[in-house]
């Protein structure tokens, strides 16, 4: 009985660095939507970077700690209450046993990450603790779920940290991206258009994809199914852009117009629905 879920929140799930080597079975890599923030939460506790964290979307959860814990929550901005008192984001702190931690609301961005010392000890399936429908038994937390943790050793139960979260990159509205394999299917105008901040993050965002509002150009159609990666920007038949995210399928049949730089995936993950973005084309 380590950490018990009193309220699951909108969509809370465990993520680590993801699954490698199972793409040939059609298994997505998964992993944290904002990998940079997830890593920062672990860094604040001096954790191994492979330690599993709790990924929290928009609001919730409410957690009961049956044990003492050393934790940190990382991301842009959120209202976090420990036993009804505000605690800061992006700083490690001690949670005494029998405490209630309430991550009430994510104020800036879409996701925040809760790390515990030495990571959550939930089941590892196909080499990762990342939750995914059809792979792990749970795809998200439910009320009364229990998350295992490693017991704190008496000598190391609190961490100070001088690390400062760098929020600046998240302010960019032009996301660095490389031309995708089918970039040249776009006309000259299409190529210019994707380099302007005219695309809106849809309200239908999720771990698989971020659809974008705004038209590029029609008529390119589908192609023979090819490999795709998280961060691939596809052009749909209607001419809209569709950014594949961490839980995206491994293969796809739409033209791959752009490929986000790694940092751009983290930045895009934290763009609220309605945000306007464009792509800054990089040379290889």
């Amino acid at each position: 009985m380590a950490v018990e879920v009193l309220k699951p929140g909108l969509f809370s799930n465990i993520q680590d660095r993801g699954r490698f080597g199972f793409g040939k079975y059609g298994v997505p890599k998964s992993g944290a939507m904002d990998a940079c923030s997830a890593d920062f939460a672990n860094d604040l506790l001096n954790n191994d970077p492979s330690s599993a964290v709790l990924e929290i979307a928009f609001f919730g959860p409410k957690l009961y700690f049956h044990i003492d814990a050393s934790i940190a929550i990382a991301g842009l901005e959120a209202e976090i209450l420990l036993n009804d008192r505000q605690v800061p984001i992006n700083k490690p702190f001690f949670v005494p046993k029998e405490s209630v931690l309430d991550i009430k609301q994510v104020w800036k961005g879409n996701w925040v990450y809760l790390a515990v010392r030495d990571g959550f000890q939930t089941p590892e399936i196909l080499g990762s603790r990342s939750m995914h429908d059809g792979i792990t038994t749970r795809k998200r937390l439910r009320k009364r779920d229990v998350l295992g943790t490693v017991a704190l050793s008496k000598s190391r139960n609190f961490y100070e940290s001088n690390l400062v979260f760098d929020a600046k990159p998240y302010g960019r509205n032009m996301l660095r991206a490389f031309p995708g394999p089918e970039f040249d299917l776009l006309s000259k105008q299409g190529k210019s258009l994707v380099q302007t901040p005219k695309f809106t993050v849809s309200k239908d965002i999720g771990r698989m994809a971020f659809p974008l509002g705004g038209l590029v150009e029609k008529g390119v159609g589908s192609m023979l199914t090819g490999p795709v990666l998280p961060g691939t920007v596809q052009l749909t038949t209607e001419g809209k852009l569709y950014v594949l995210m961490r839980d995206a399928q491994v293969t796809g049949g739409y033209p791959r117009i752009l490929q986000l730089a790694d940092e751009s995936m983290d930045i895009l993950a934290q763009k609220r629905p309605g945000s306007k973005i464009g792509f800054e084309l990089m040379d290889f």
Partner: protein
Amino acid sequence: MNDQKPTFKRYGERGILISWKLGMDENLLRFILGAKKQILGSNIKSIVEIIHTYNSLLVLYDTPIKNIYGEIKRLKNYISTYSSSQKTKPTCFHIPVCYDPKFGLDLELVKTKNNLEIPEIISLHSEPIYTLYFMGFLPGFLYLGTLGEKLHIPRKERPRKRVEKGAVGIAGNQTGIYPKNGPGGWQIIGNCPLVFFDPKQNPPTLFSAGDKIKFHSITLEEHRSILEQVKRGEFSIKKEMHGR
């Protein structure tokens, strides 16, 4: 296949996409699988994974590729020196499918559009020995080809919000089986009671690209019975080495 020169393109900072100008082709698949094995067995330590589809190989590295020309040259070398003279004997699996209208939701549609009687649809689908080209779309979703021309039908314009686990679908020159419940855009003609993906096993599936698949028609009762056997872990899939 060595004179079919592929193109090499960067795909993100850590990927190289190798593409051939062909569609679904068994010879190309054999070549791609052999080349993949060759590259993975090489001394290039920074390659983490290689994903393939009908006509592509995506080689993924663990860090951003610094010397792209050198890397492409190295891959080109592996591919051009690879010869598919080694004869691999793929496994042929016999897969039971129930084509009863209870499961074959789009049998009538295929009958109308392709001007075929339903028994014809069933025999056209279950006669050939298909090749497993790759897995994708969902964990354990098998992309099988080549579907006979008489059965060619486009995928649905609006995918179904939910297809059953085991649903057997056709689209274009492909056929496949949905490994779990979920949305699906292919035309559904039957259902297979087997498990195609079990994450608790390693490997999580019985099948590998290059394997052969042969369907055979079963009754509703047989479908129910096999489903029970599978649940109890008592079902053994029939298989043999394929090819002369």
